[in-house]
Structure formats: structure tokens, C-alpha cells
């Protein structure tokens, strides 16, 4: 608005003194408002007086107004300020004015913590110890090695099974009349949080001593089926199984939760990819005498391998960071711990920042190559599309 009238009143491109003054004033005003607002947020006593809930609500309201309005005001003010500069400077500077805040935010909230974490992992060591102490400790600690081994199992099994099952679903669902309904059933778990899923599955795997009602559906089924086998004389006796305590099967039982969560995602993406496969290709294969299975595995799958890779790497990244599922079900006991659980325990239970940051760095380093593959692949697809 201001600019419009400004332009209307003074059509000359040369910046006038009033304009500069106005720009400086606006920037100063916005900065002051933001600074005051942040101070207000930092000191909750300014809101005190009424009930604590109300003060929290008003705090939240102020935060939203400040956050959204503040960013807008900041962009607006800096734009006005840039406009006040001579023409060429405006053109040169304007892109930076718009990009810099984003860069700053990424810097403050992403780059700085990462650098800090890495530094901490090398420097938070007992006095006189070498910078690698935390890493030596980590890679010689049997618990950490176990966690790393488990992460590897997760990484190998979870994405592969998710993609495989998702692919099969996507292939099958493509031919079903109630495709949308079938898909939404498989997709639904994706809406469940990791913690929620872990709680639900803890009940699925629940164990009660023999003779008591089995509240875990898996044991209920197992006992029924096993009882039948006993009657047939195929089995001597059947007892409930503590699925989450049976090493090493418990890790696989936990991976099943992840697969349950991720299959929907895999299916949706792969299903879309399958629909993108030109029908001529399939028909050509059929005419050449390929069976349905052959057409699927030899034609459809190779055609959508880009999508498969994307899904695989995306799930792999999620799997490397897995925490909630294990924390809620076994707490990392019974040889099920993973690096992220160790990190949490080091950080919050033992307050060992050196070890905790070391775990974080190990995870980061492990995720990077998968990330690179993922992004490269996405880019390739983007170019193709």
C-alpha cells in the first residue's frame, strides 16, 4: 500500500530523503517490536496474574502473532529498505534480502546444532583424555556394539520387507474393484504415530502365564492353533510365548511393527508408479507371450525402479532413526537396543553428553550415504518428469 501511493506521488526512481528516512524508521520499528515481543515471551511473569492456563494460552497467542506477523513485517520492512537504495543496489540486494532469513534459520536451527554436536562429541571427554575417547568408548562398549548390530539388522530387514510387501500390495490392488477402500486399509497405519503403534503392538505381543486368559492376540492365536496341533498329536504341549523376550526373534517382532507402519507408504507411492507404466509396454510383453507374473517382474518392476529406490531409501532413513518403537515396547532390554535408544539414555538418564553426542554423530554419518542416494534419485526422477 505504502509503495503504491509512494510510487503514485513520486514517480521519479531516484530515492528521496523522505523515503530513506521512512525505510529506516520502519525497519527500526519492526526490529523494536520483535525485540520487545521476544522479551515478553521469555519472561512469562509479564503474563502472570490470571490462571496459569490462561497465561500459557495468551503466551501461545502472542507467539503465533509474533511468529507469523513478525516474519511478514520483517520481509516487508527489509523490502522497503532495499527499495530506498539506488536502483542497481536494489536489484543486486533484493534476492539476498529474501533468501538470507531462510539461510539464517537453517544455520541457527540445523547447521549450528550439528556442528555443536560434532564438536561436543570430541571435546566432552574427561580431563587429559584424547579427543577420540568417546568414540573409542563407544566402539568398545558391548552394549553399543549390540545397538549397532541391531541397527544393521533393522536396516537390512525393515526397508526390504516394507518395499516387497508394498510392491505386492500395489501390484495386486491395481486389479481390484474396491481399490480405494483396499488401499486406505493398508494405508491407515501410516496415520498412527510410532508411539501409538508401539503401544498397540505391545498388546498384540502381550504374554500372560499359562492358565490365565491371553490378552495378547498373537498368543491367543498361537495357543488355539497349538492346541489343535496337540490334539492331532503333532505337538507335545503348547505354552504362551513371550515374543518380546525371545532373543533374537524379538528384534524381528519389533521390525514387524515398523513394516506395518511403512507398508502403506510404500504401497501408495509404488501404486502410483505402476499406474504410470505405459500400458503399451505391458501389452507388448503379453503379445510376446509373457505370463502375468513375468510381465510384472520383468517389465513393470524395472520400469518403476526409480520409485522403488526412493521408497527404499526413505524408509531406510526412518529405520536408522528408529527409537519410539523400541523404547515403548522393551526399553532396549533383551538385546533389542538401537543407537537412538542409547543416545536417549546417555542424554537424559545418565547425563553423559559426550556419549550422547557421539551416538548422534554415528547416526548422522550412517544416514548421510542413504540420504545422498535418495536425493540423487529424486533429482533424476524430477528431471525425467
Amino acid at each position, binding site marked *: 500500500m505504502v509503495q503504491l501511493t509512494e510510487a503514485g506521488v513520486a514517480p521519479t526512481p531516484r530515492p528521496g530523503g523522505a523515503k530513506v528516512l521512512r525505510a529506516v524508521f520502519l525497519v527500526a520499528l519492526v526490529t523494536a517490536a520483535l525485540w520487545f515481543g521476544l522479551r515478553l515471551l521469555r519472561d512469562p511473569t509479564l503474563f502472570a496474574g490470571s490462571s496459569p492456563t490462561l497465561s500459557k494460552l495468551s503466551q501461545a497467542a502472542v507467539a503465533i502473532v509474533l511468529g507469523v506477523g513478525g516474519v511478514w513485517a520483517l520481509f516487508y520492512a527489509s523490502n522497503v529498505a532495499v527499495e530506498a537504495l539506488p536502483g542497481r543496489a536494489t536489484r543486486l540486494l533484493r534476492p539476498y534480502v529474501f533468501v538470507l532469513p531462510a539461510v539464517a534459520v537453517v544455520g541457527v536451527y540445523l547447521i549450528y546444532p550439528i556442528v555443536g554436536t560434532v564438536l561436543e562429541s570430541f571435546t566432552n571427554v*574427561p580431563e587429559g583424555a584424547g579427543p577420540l575417547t568417546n568414540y573409542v568408548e563407544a566402539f568398545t562398549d558391548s552394549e553399543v556394539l549390540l545397538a549397532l548390530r541391531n541397527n544393521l539388522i533393522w536396516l537390512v530387514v525393515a526397508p526390504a520387507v516394507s518395499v516387497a510387501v508394498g510392491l505386492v500390495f500395489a501390484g495386486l490392488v491395481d486389479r481390484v474393484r474396491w481399490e480405494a477402500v483396499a488401499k486406505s486399509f493398508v494405508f491407515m497405519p501410516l496415520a498412527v504415530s510410532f508411539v501409538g503403534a508401539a503401544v498397540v503392538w505391545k498388546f498384540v505381543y502381550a504374554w500372560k*502365564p499359562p492358565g490365565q486368559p491371553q490378552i495378547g492376540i498373537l498368543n491367543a492365536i498361537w495357543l488355539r492353533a497349538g492346541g489343535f496341533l496337540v490334539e492331532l498329536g503333532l505337538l507335545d504341549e503348547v505354552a504362551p510365548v513371550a515374543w518380546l*523376550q525371545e532373543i533374537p526373534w524379538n528384534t524381528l517382532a519389533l521390525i514387524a511393527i515398523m513394516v506395518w507402519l511403512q507398508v502403506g507408504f510404500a504401497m501408495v507411492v509404488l501404486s502410483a508408479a505402476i499406474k504410470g507404466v505405459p500400458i503399451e509396454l505391458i501389452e507388448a510383453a503379453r503379445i510376446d507371450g509373457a505370463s502375468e507374473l513375468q510381465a510384472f517382474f520383468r517389465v513393470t518392476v524395472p520400469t518403476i525402479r526409480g520409485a522403488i529406490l526412493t521408497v527404499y531409501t526413505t524408509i531406510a532413513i526412518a529405520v536408522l532413526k528408529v527409537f519410539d518403537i523400541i523404547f515403548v515396547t522393551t526399553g532396549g*532390554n533383551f538385546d533389542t537396543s538401537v543407537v537412538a535408544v542409547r543416545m536417549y*539414555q546417555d542424554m*537424559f*538418564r*545418565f547425563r553423559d553428553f559426550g556419549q550422547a553426542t557421539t551416538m548422534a554423530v554415528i547416526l548422522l554419518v550412517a544416514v548421510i550415504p542413504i540420504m545422498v542416494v535418495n536425493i540423487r534419485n529424486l533429482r533424476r526422477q524430477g528431471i525425467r518428469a
Partner: protein
Amino acid sequence: MKSRKWLWLGVVLALVAAACGGTVGTDTTGATDTTAEGAGQAGDTGYEHLDRALAGEFDGTTVEVWAQWLPESAEEANFTFALEPFAEATGITVDFQATPDYETALQVAVDGGNAPDLAQIAQPGKMHQYADAESLVALDWFNADKLQADMVPAFYELGIHNDTLYGVYYKTDVKSIVWYPVQAFEENGYTVPTTWDELIALSDQIIADGNGSPWCISIESQEADGWVATDWMEDILLRTAPPEIYNQWITHEIPFNHEEVLEAADYMSQVWFAPEYAFGGSTYINATWIGETQDPMFTEGGPQCWMQKQAAWIGGFWGANRDALADDPDLPPSEWPIKPETDVDFFYFPQIEEEFGTPVLGAADMFVMFNDRPEVRALLEWLATPEAAQGWIERGGFLSPLTTVPADWYTYPNNQLAEMVTEATTVGFDASDLMPAEVGAGTFWSGMIDWVAADGENTEEIFQEIEDSWPSS
């Protein structure tokens, strides 16, 4: 960060019987009754800010208090009830919040600069951590002389960090008790064991009679899996070794797998891993949530497990009590479906070696202060008075560390527990709470789980692993 300055405090404090004796004895003077009324009188509490608060000086202010007593639990309801007189007498609003996943939540709040005014802490090690990080308000303004005079010395000393008072103890727990079903015991002619040998003999008798397993044991406890097992270890060690050993074990002056400790582990194995002793075996121990441990004690056809070692809070979790209290957390024990004393009673976890007498294992909750305002000071001072304990004592399940609480306030089971503490030859504070968190809340817990998972067959290996995990600095 890794300094363990506080470890010297690691304590079995030979608890002077006299400390408690004055009030538990039956002949308390009539004078004690005067304190029993209201929230105290203005000007005579011995605490400066509390006096000012009672005079109405801080009317209209709010104090935020956090504790781990879970939302909608009996403990939360009891504490809320106990706080009421303070709010009434001073006009100060106490905003009490019980938080699940408490220790992490508190840590995050403190790190984020949003710490509550007062917070309950169960592990003294945490207090030292926060004090070292300068998150806590030092209580140098507190009338420490009065507190020292009013409180069992062991607990007063556990609130001190680097010669300065930081924590005020509010509530204690006695862990050395074993619960049993009264009628079933009578019907079968079982008597309460007073020695370890009798305990084992009774266990064998129960098995021989075909009455199921003698013991209800389980240790699954979400984030804190395993602490029930560490309590057993500690209780037994207090009975099989001199207090000095227990102390040195906590401070790591002797290795974690010292032979005395392994001997205690052997005693524990006699109950935990002997065939048929523990209901459902090792799988049950590791898979069952601690609130449901004793469920088989209340099956319709009679108990399938007969004895459970657990502190008094467990009463709220007996069979039907769990649902009844979920519906109404305010239900007094006399109206519970399964009643303490008449339905389920307890006995003292028996002595093992006579020379070590009759020790008691205990734990306690303290309050620490994060924000220094006069009304916060007033509430903390009030929490160190008998009036703060009165409400909770009335509703049961509370044992105060204050010696000024009149003995006749207590009802079952705390009157007996208070007596047990008085007669104890030693009172040991929960060792795992005093060890560095890497061990006390880490490998000691997880080690016990692994030990159970292997049916106790890898004792030496497990204790060696815990020893190896002790932080080096």
C-alpha cells in the same frame, strides 16, 4: 560433570533409634496435640517466610510444583489433598502438576529454562546433578537448625550438597516388607516367618502342599525396568554384610561384584530362581508390569502366589483395588475391595545373619527449589512442617521423615512401619538411587533383567559387566 563429589554421602546411616523414638513411643506428652490444628499459627512456625505467608503477605500469588505422582493416581489425589490447608491459610495458589515420564520431563524443563518453582526428586544423585549445574536455589536462607532438629538425621544429611542444604525431604518409604494373603495363610496353617530359614521352609511348604508358587515377583516398569530387583539385592546385602560394605559398595570403594555382593546374589537366587518359587518363572518376572505382579495372589480358586516384597504403595494395585481406585482415586483403604491388614497383611523381610540385626531399606522423596520467590520459600518451609504431612497421613500411605509428626497420627500400616524404622539396627537408603546414574539407573537395572532372562545362571558374568560399566572418572 562426572565428578562424584556427593558420593561420600552414600549412606547407610546407622539410624539412631532415638531420632524417631521420641515420637513413636507411646508416652508422648500432651503438648504434641497443639500442632495438629490447621496449617500452623502465624508467627510461631519457626520459619520466616511461612510466618509471613500465614499473615497473608503473599495472598494471590501462585507456586508451581511438580512431582512424579502420576495424574489420577491415589498419590496425586493425596498430595493435592495434603496441600489444601496451605492454600487456605495463606491464599497462595499451589499449581501442582504430576507428570508422566517425570525425570525426563523435569530435565527438559530445567534445560529449557522453564523449571517449576518446586520439584520432587526421588534420587539424591539428581539433586547433586542439578546443584552442580547451578540449576537449584541453595537453601542457605532456610532455618536449617530447626530442620535438623525436626528431621531424622539421615534424611537431613541427604539433602546437603557441598555443605549447603538443597533438598528438603518430605516423604519416605520402607521397602523391607513382604505382603501375604491373611485368610489363606490361616486356612493353610502357615505362620509368618521371622528368619530366612523359616522363609525358605514356608516357601517349600507351599510348593509341597500343591498351592502354587510361594512368590509373586516381577520387574517390568516401563522406563525403570529392573528396580524391584535392585531393591531385593540391597535389602539382602544389608542383611548379609556389615553396613560399611553397603556404603563402600555404593561409593565403589569395593568392586560392584565384591564377594559379599555375590553372596547376597546367591541368597536372592534362592528365591528368584529356585524351581517353582517365583510364579510364572523368569518370563513372568521380566514380562509383568510391577503393578500387576501380585495378580495371581487374588485368583478365585485361592492364591497362586503367596508372598510379595514391595513397599506399602502396592495396596492400591491389588486385584480389584486397581479398578476401584481408577474410578475414585479418593477411596480410603477402609473401603477398598481388598483391604489392607484384614485381607492382606505384611511382615518384616526377615533377618538373615543375626550379627547384622534387623536393617530396613528405605527410599525418600525430597523437594528442591528452582525459582526463588518469597511465596516459594514459604511453601518449601511449610513442607517441612508436620501439617504438610497431616493430610496425606490421614488418607494413608505416608511416612514422614519428620520426628515432629505425632506417632498417634499414623494408622495401619504406617504406625507399624514407623515402629519398624525405630527398631531398625540400620536404615539403608536405596543404593541404586545413590550410585551414578549410569549404574544405578542403567546397568544395574539392565543387568538384573539379563540375569533373570538367563534364569540366574550367569551371576558372575552379570556382576562383572556391571562392575565394568562403572564410570571411570
